[in-house]
């Protein structure tokens, strides 16, 4: 059995939750109050997902080992 991947990133969480929300919103049995609550959460999740998608261009860094043995990251022109 495949081992689970580590802590899911939040974009993944947002997309999963959005999928869940629209399914429930599209289902026949949600009442209006519940629908509004779902919708409002959906808007928040949607905004968070869009913000993540419009983040700055992919960054490239390089690992460097410091004199004391610790690791540092420096920008790499790529």
């Amino acid at each position, binding site marked *: 059995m*495949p081992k689970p*991947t580590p802590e899911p990133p939040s974009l993944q969480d947002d997309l999963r939750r959005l999928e869940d929300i629209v399914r429930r919103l599209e289902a026949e049995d949600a009442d209006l109050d519940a*629908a509004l609550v779902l919708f*409002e959460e*959906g*808007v928040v999740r949607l905004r968070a997902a869009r913000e993540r998608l419009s*983040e700055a261009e992919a960054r490239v860094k390089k690992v460097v080992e410091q004199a004391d043995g610790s690791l540092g990251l420096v920008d790499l022109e790529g």
Partner: protein
Amino acid sequence: MTLPSLFGDGELPEELSVAELNRRARDAVEGEFGGAVFVRGELVEFKIWRSGHWYFTLRDADASVRCMLWKQQAAGVLKRHGQPPSDGMEVLVRGRPSLWEEKGEYRLTASDIIPTELLGAKAQELERVRAALTADGLLDPARKRSLPPFARRIAVVTSPDGAALRDIIIVARNRWSAVEIVVVGAQVQGEGAATSLARALGLVNRIDGVELCIVGRGGGAKGDLDAFNAEQVCRALAAVRVPTISAVGHETDVSLSDLVADARAATPSAAAEMAVPDGAAVVQRVDGFGVRLAAGLRRRTRVAEERLVRTGDRLQGALARLIEARRSRVERVAAQLDALSPLRVLARGYSVAQDDDGRVLSHAADFSSGRPFRLRVSDGTVPARAE
């Protein structure tokens, strides 16, 4: 005289012609093995017949088997290994166990003869490492982890100056912006490469927030992939705490690192494609959620309004105020929807390239030279053409 009287009473075996017997024996032999096998042994009684076919016997301490190799295959063996084998040579024979029906002789029909000395120390080492990794379960497909769909920080273990790194960066950037690539430099070929790679893989576990690791190099001569077959590299790769992709840059040769990694990519570019999602597809998915959210809510409110209208006459003032409150809440959230519309994104200065059928062109490969397309901007569409 009848058969029963000759052989006495009891169950009668079926009667076969010699040809039938041999045909069925051949089917049984070939069916048992189902294809080619490798057999190791000492080659003796080697003889090239006038027909050009090769005949020899393969034996070990316990048994021997007659072998033959067709003339057509012999040419290939000479081409690959330089000279015909000679008696006493230890060889690995690739062939299909079969039976020569005319003579009723069981034999191995060979397709290749490889002198084991040519297999060399390198191959023996490869087999030793493979056996050691297998014994520790590191090649077990069941231990493969699935790759995270949206890794935010990806470690890339490769040569800092190599084409592999450049390819990974270009492909990843073209697909997905929300990622940070952390290069962990390593020597990928030549003396000391295995130690360097193993050490770099060890560093990956010490970098905060890494969610995925790519290890690889560009294509090259087969000998150059040795480091990726080294035991210390395979073990260091297995010890990486996050899912791993091996991209050793060789379509045909599979390295042991490829087998240890959670996923294998044929090239570094393919590894980058596995590592990050296609941004255009994700944006489309998110836009789809926006549309479905709005449609879902609209339908809900319509149903509720119809119900209220039907029972409206009987409503008391307090209830009417409650409805009003709900209505204004609907209007408030509906206004938020507008902000999520794709058109608002265009208003910020972005544009979308589409073909004549309205399909979104999101990859460089979509723009062949001279191809006309339409550029959708915030207030209309501009005809355009790729240079």
